[in-house]
């Protein structure tokens, strides 16, 4: 009977893999999206014994170890890949991409949220906000602009060009860098949450007029989709075989025909 549950375990794991892949595919064109991967893990290995009745004794036979096997399989965790997404040109003054590490910081409803999506707009007061209306955090507070006539230095310093042709420094995007990106928790809407403090080596460039595309690739996801499909099918075949075996045990063993 153990094999039946193993086949079921394998099928369930492939279903959750499909869930992760289908979400990656849905977000193929989501700005700043970081793809996930389901990590499979096996249960603890158990010793398997064969019971062999000895011909000349009456003690019920002996147990002979025949090796160990994993008890079942499960999805241990989903791991987010923070690999750089492709830089896509937009030529929009308030679009920013990060090449390298780090996150833009915005003031969420309850917490500071981190994102790689640098599409910002101005609200009615000229404050730099995200598409959801969250204020973008600059060094020393929010960033206020008079117009979209700005240019950005690679360190995120913003300069506004006034109507008279003067250039004024108006603020700096506050880029947060962390030791361990793997500790970032997905929050949805392209945002991440984390408890860890900032740290680690800064190695980024703010690039204006570009956005970072999704790091999910169609080719890779389609390959994974095929693998899921075939693995599921194999597990299903095992289940059918087990079913047939059990059918024989229940209905044919011991019958006189």
């Amino acid at each position: 009977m153990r094999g039946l549950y193993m086949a079921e375990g394998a099928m369930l794991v492939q279903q959750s893999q499909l869930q992760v892949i289908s979400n990656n595919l849905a977000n193929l064109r989501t700005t700043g999206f970081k793809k996930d991967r389901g990590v499979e893990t096996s249960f603890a290995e158990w010793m398997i014994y064969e019971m062999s009745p000895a011909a000349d004794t009456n003690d019920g036979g002996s147990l002979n170890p025949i090796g160990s096997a994993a008890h079942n399989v499960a999805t241990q965790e989903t791991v987010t890949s923070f690999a750089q997404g492709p830089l896509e040109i937009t030529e929009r003054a308030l679009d920013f991409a990060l090449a390298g590490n780090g996150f833009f910081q915005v003031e969420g409803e309850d917490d500071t949220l981190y994102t790689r999506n640098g599409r910002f707009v101005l609200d009615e007061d000229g404050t730099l906000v995200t598409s959801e209306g969250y204020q973008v955090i600059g060094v020393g507070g929010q960033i206020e602009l008079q117009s979209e006539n700005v240019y950005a230095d690679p360190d995120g310093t913003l300069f506004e060009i006034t109507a008279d042709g003067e250039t004024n420094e108006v603020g700096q995007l506050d880029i947060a860098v962390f030791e361990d990106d793997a500790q970032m928790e997905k929050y949805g809407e392209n945002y991440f949450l984390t408890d860890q403090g900032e740290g680690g080596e800064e190695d980024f460039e703010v690039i204006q007029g570009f956005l970072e595309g999704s790091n999910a690739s169609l080719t890779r996801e389609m390959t994974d989709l095929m693998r899921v499909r075939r693995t599921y099918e194999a597990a299903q075949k095992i289940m059918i075989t087990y079913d047939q075996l059990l059918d024989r045990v229940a209905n044919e063993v011991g019958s006189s025909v």
Partner: protein
Amino acid sequence: MGRSFYNAFSGIAAYQSALAKIGDNLANLNTNAHKRSEVSFTELLYSEMQEKGYSVDPLPEELPPHSGKGVHMYPVTKIFDQGALQQTERPLDLAIEGEGFFRIERQGGTEAYTRRGSFFVDNDGSLVTDRGDYLDVEFDLDGILLNSVVVGPNGQVSGENFEGDRVDLGDIMLYSFVNKGGLFKLGGGLYEATESSGEPDELPPGGNGAGSLNQYHLEASNVDMSAEMVELIANQRALEGNTRSMITADELKALTLLVRG
């Protein structure tokens, strides 16, 4: 597995809307002063997976397995980049080179803003758009030779009357917004101010942020055909990818049922 269906469905829906927007841009390749819209996407909320097939006891230092819930399209971003200036033969074709808008009084009495500067004279001598809405400045072009009308880059309008005297007719003002992207699109090249766009600043044309006026010119659409074609292909492929994941989810369901076929 039900989740996978909805992930795929959200992707198909999002990329379909994106294709519709690209279609709209391409259809307006030759519409005067048309501003293209750009689509962008965002993930839906994440939740922890507590389903079968997942380890019930993740290692303490690891975040619990999480699962996305697909994608949706952001409200479109209108891109107000300057369109190219095209020369025309009409004295009342005015193109704005800069950030501003003309203010239009609509027939219902409401105000709207436009960059489509193709004006006409109605039977009262007022300046109207091709839809019959009035430019906000009152002009009286009655008794003025139309071909003598001069509109300066600073918005000053003058013309010659039938006696051959040049008379000042008034000034065209422009209006600029802090957040143009927040304007509400009414159709026909008209936009309405909203809470998000903020109230407009009234500025005379000419080099102070509102832009200057170019007579005998119209602003072309800012849709770039080759960029739209690239978008079209990318969204079409993404749509196909999501169709495949829906089909796969369906196949897994079918295989499950076949266990006792």
